[in-house]
């Protein structure tokens, strides 16, 4: 068994009196395709925000490659290799598509003053299938191209762990397959992926292992087949 890449131990997050995460524990192995699901408001995005550093948890700890990152600034986690995409794409709108990639290449992947930045960015766009749009502003992109830009920009940060937060919401069936194919290919390049998704068809096909959150608690864990047959999960989604 490989050592865990990411360890989340007893994570607690409160917003005033509301407990968004109640002692959530999960381990993600290196190279794994990991699914995180749960009904709306179950704490998925809060958990991701704690892992990526946008929020500070009120209890518990997070380890990445054995290093305690619980209180680390978000940009330093990115440099360690934890990179996320956003549910609602957040491109740098004053820059062209390729310039969007220069930011993480310069700030996260290499240190400063690196000559190869331009060709690397072009290579990533080619892999994602956005090379034709390299010199457009994000404002001129379609919905799926915007999602691809989110992924491309995350890739430019050279992630070890890629957290994809609902990268497929609102896409057509063919477009979902398109994004899935990209994620499978990235996983083939030793990138560990956490997928948060409401599109069950996608998450069941993609994930090797799934954790289910409901009301801030972990209610189930297992292979896609085990999750489909799980009583507690059915109850969380459909009620009794």
């Amino acid at each position, binding site marked *: 068994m490989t050592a865990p890449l990411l360890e989340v131990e007893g994570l607690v997050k409160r917003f005033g009196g509301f407990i968004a995460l109640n002692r959530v524990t999960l381990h993600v192995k290196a190279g794994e395709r990991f699914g995180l699901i749960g009904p709306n408001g179950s704490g998925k995005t809060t958990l991701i925000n704690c892992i990526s550093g946008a929020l500070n948890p009120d209890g518990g700890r997070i380890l990445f490659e054995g290093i305690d990152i619980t209180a680390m600034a978000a*940009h330093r986690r990115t*440099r360690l290799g934890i990179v996320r995409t*956003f549910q609602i794409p*957040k*491109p740098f709108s*004053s820059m062209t598509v390729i310039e969007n990639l220069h930011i*993480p290449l*310069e700030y996260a992947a290499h240190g400063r003053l690196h000559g190869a930045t331009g060709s690397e960015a072009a290579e990533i766009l080619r892999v994602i299938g956005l090379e034709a749009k390299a010199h457009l502003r994000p404002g001129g992109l379609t919905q799926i191209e915007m999602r691809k830009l989110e992924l491309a920009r995350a890739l430019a940060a050279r992630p070890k762990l890629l957290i994809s937060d609902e990268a497929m919401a609102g896409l057509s069936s063919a477009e979902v397959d398109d994004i899935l194919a990209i994620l499978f290919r990235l996983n083939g390049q030793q990138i560990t992926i956490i997928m948060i998704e409401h599109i069950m068809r996608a998450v069941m096909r993609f994930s090797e292992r799934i954790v289910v959150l409901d009301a801030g608690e972990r209610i189930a864990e297992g292979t896609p087949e085990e999750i489909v047959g799980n009583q507690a999960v059915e109850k969380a989604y459909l009620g009794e």
Partner: protein
Amino acid sequence: MVAAGVLIASLRVNPYLYFAGYVIFQYIVIATAWNILGGYAGYVNFGTPAFFALGAYTAVFLIQSIRAPLPVLILAGGLVSALLGLGIGYLTLRLRGVFFSIATLALSIVLQTMIINWDYVGGSRGLSVIRPSSPPFGSYVTFLFTVMVFLAVVAVTAARFIERSWIGRGLAALRDNEEAAECMGVPTLRLKLFATTISGFLLGVAGAPFPYYVTFVEPNSAFNLDYAVNALAMPMIGGTTSWIGPVIGAVLLGSAQQLATVTISSEMNLFIVGVVLVAFVVLAPEGILGLVRRLRAR
């Protein structure tokens, strides 16, 4: 450019031209400084008068206490305002958008109240400053003009360097989306503090020669609202995304104001700024640079 400034200074044309030219170059420094924070990082600072006046009053204090020479005044004025910039950066870290702007507006008022109650630097009555004798050039105003040309060159060079370096690209990322920038490895906090500090420094530098220029310093002129409005209007009119934008804006608007002061009335200044700013916000929101770019793209 410095050489050109010295040359102009040695021409000995109508002394009023130096007097007016000083103001225009002073505005190049102010607009450029404002734009590092407001244009590059997207944090709109309404507190320009606070930084400018702090530079001026640091100079007044050093003149009063030790009669420090001009280069010392400029450096000290810059450093004290830089500290204020750093402090404001820390205090307003969590304030984004309009809330940051309101905080800077409040800063100006707080600082002015403090100066009004500090008798050593003149309090509310103001203070006469005697210029040092034997200036290197014909008149002291000509000398100050040359100094301000030099400062403008320094400010514009610094802005141009920042814009084209990794710092400028990081600031642009955080202006577009702060959360995404942080997640892409940009140390947004450190870059913001850098921007508030360097912007504060240059605003202080612009204010430090002010006491010798006007020879009578009082809070209402040092904390004049004109500085807040112009610092914002000039880059907006020229274009905020490039170092040349604030320069264009400062030259155009600064000259127009000087002309209006002489030919119409000194009260027309802000009126002109207001009309021009409204026209630009409506017709060319990306300033003259944006306008030129759009015409070229056709």
